[in-house]
């Protein structure tokens, strides 16, 4: 009787382990930007151009939101594909960092509404490259406003700042 109970418990343990692993697997849905050809190409081209590399690889960075960019097994930078709020909905954008978490590029992938699209202007987004984010006040002072895009400007500004702070803490 005791042996039978132990067998059942062991079987249940195996089953539980399998279920947990499968559930963990399904807790991550597929990457949307990797499925989207235009986004995939944009990000690939940016990484290739910035790091002058066609042989880089990307992989998930521990359990956080960032992706590590590697060349010959050495970390050369980081990628974050994320979202922020515009007036009525969310927009998708990405940040590419060097290995010291300095911003090399920011680009909007998908902007879903008509208001505030001015933040998609790559010339405006260039001001985030190498921006001093030592203090939030200094950082905010360096970002120019755009009339008619107040919400989206504040949103991407704040999102970039806090994500960059997160990365700096993670790689410390």
């Amino acid at each position, binding site marked *: 009787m005791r042996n039978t109970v132990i067998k059942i418990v062991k079987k249940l343990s195996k089953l539980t382990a399998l279920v947990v692993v499968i559930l963990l697997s399904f807790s991550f849905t597929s990457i949307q930007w990797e499925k989207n050809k235009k986004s995939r190409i944009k990000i690939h081209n940016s990484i290739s151009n910035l790091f002058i590399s066609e042989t880089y690889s990307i992989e998930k960075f521990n359990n956080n939101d960032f992706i590590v960019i590697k060349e010959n097994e050495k970390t050369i930078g980081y990628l974050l594909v994320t979202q922020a709020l515009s007036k009525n909905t969310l927009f998708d954008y990405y940040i590419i960092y060097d290995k010291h978490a300095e911003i090399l590029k920011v680009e909007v992938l998908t902007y879903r509404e008509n208001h505030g699209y001015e933040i998609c202007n790559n010339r405006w987004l260039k001001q985030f490259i190498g921006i001093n984010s030592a203090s939030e006040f200094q950082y905010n002072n360096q970002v*120019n406003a755009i009339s008619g895009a107040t919400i989206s400007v504040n949103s991407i500004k704040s999102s970039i700042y806090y994500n960059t702070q997160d990365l700096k803490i993670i790689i410390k």
Partner: protein
Amino acid sequence: MNKVILMGLIFSIFTTASAQNSAQKIIGSNKGLHIGGYGQVDYNRIINSDINYNATLDVHRIVTFIGYNFNDKTSFVSEIEMEHVTETYVEQAFLSHRIKNNVSVNAGLMLIPMGIQNLYHEPPTFNGVERTNVDKYIVPTTWREMGVSINGRMLDNTLGYEIMVVNGFNGFDGESNFSGKSGLRGGRQKGAKSYMTNPDLATRFSYTAIPGWNLGLSTYFGESESKAYNDLDLSNVSAVASADSTIIGINMIGLDSRYNKGALQFRAQYIVGNLSNTAQYNTKTGSDVGSVISGYYSELGYNVLKNSKTENELITFARYENYNTHKQTDGIEINSVYDRTDVTFGIGFKVAQGAMFKADYQIKSNGSDPRSYQLNLGTAIWF
């Protein structure tokens, strides 16, 4: 046991090799309810050393935004407005569907894309307690009508466009809704059982290639609507001619510019409306509508706290504004009272993003009356 776990791990790695960050997960579930709002509460008092005028204290407008994203491409946008506490309006109510990454189609009650403030009228986004009078008497903000639009961006997101087909103004419903003093303002249908004979066309192009600078070109072409056309026997020549005298043609063009650099803010706008058939309209209805209405303003602002260690903003500004609803007339004399100029000086103290205290002083003049002076105080919110 080991085999089971190994299989699980392989499965896990296989499926998470393309795993993503938490924010990306939101992309897949990008839908839901969005609620926001804006409003302004005002104090206005005409200042005169000889005559006393009472001040007015008004909950000018409180607007509730409710939006719903059905999926990544389709959303509904609505704004419900309470004006002066007792008046309720629907300011926007449209369905938006993104047909390409940079192109959307909207249908419903929408803002006419003319000038700056008809589109961007949330109170913390403009200087001064009240909206500019160019955007009241020349562009009748909040100007919204029923229709369909296509909008999008091109040239690497530096050129935005909106092309809209909408119903026209209600110019005549038994009596004139246009006037010499207020221009086209009284003819807005606002989506309340709107009617139409033929649609009008509104367009706007915004050029934003230079960071901080936004240049806008707006147009509106069409004719006003008239209830005289309803149930009209087209073989009755005199009835058709009579109905033809109850509409006016409207060709309006606007040019606007906004520039922000550091602490500096600059914006300017020019709007001109050529109105045809006004002589017949005025004769038929007894109105005094001008044949050309126009207005412009130029405003300079400076955030004096830009370089201090605070995130608050203290914006000082000055604005010169002229708006003339009798720039030209046809068949009637020009009334110089309708050639109005406002010079406004003021401050706005932004205590949080979307929350602002405002104060300004206006020197108002026109082509015939003595100058008048007005003090405005107000609070402005947007969330």
